[in-house]
């Protein structure tokens, strides 16, 4: 079984949304800034619930923000 990784476009969407800060995104997704940093760096895979919250914060679908790679 290959290594599974979830890529994300958090940084890109933050800058496209009036340069939203990590803290602002954290508030919208109801998590700590540390968690946003870890997700953005690809070091933490969020739960489905959190992935949906983050996607909603950008007004996008989960598929647009997160990409499943094998």
């Amino acid at each position, binding site marked *: 079984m290959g290594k599974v990784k979830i890529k994300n476009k958090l940084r890109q969407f933050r800058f496209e949304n009036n340069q939203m800060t990590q*803290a602002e995104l*954290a*508030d919208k997704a*109801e*998590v*700590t*800034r*540390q*968690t946003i*940093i*870890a997700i953005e*760096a690809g*070091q*933490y895979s*969020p*739960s489905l*619930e*959190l992935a949906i919250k983050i996607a909603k914060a950008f007004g996008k679908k989960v598929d647009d923000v997160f990409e499943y790679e094998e």
Partner: protein
Amino acid sequence: MNRTQKIAWLFVITISLAVVSSLIAVAILYSKVGMPKALTGFALLGIVGFAGFGPVIFPKDKGKIICDERDTSINRKAAIAGFGASYLVVGLACMLPFSILGPHATVSVVWLPNIFMAAGLTSFFVHSVVILVLYGRGGKNG
């Protein structure tokens, strides 16, 4: 660094300091007064008690959200690792005398509270180290 990490650091430092200083004290006392008086050096393990002030020393983190799913996940993994390590300590403490001394030997009950303390220290130490390692994977700001 969040509050959990600061408290974990306090635990790692105090436990390390307590164990090293008590072992040195026991070694020094052993050379001067011999056993069993040298065991009083383990009284220095009381240093660990300072870790209990962690929640008082470190104020709560600022911000609306201070704990989320990642924090809960890290804490759960750390707790499991801590419990596993303490279980290993108790297991070794029970099985090693049996395999070294044989099935008909006797062991002083003095060792029972010591085993309990060793298991507790191991649990807290491993729990704290795992917290630091898992948060450390979050990079500079993790």
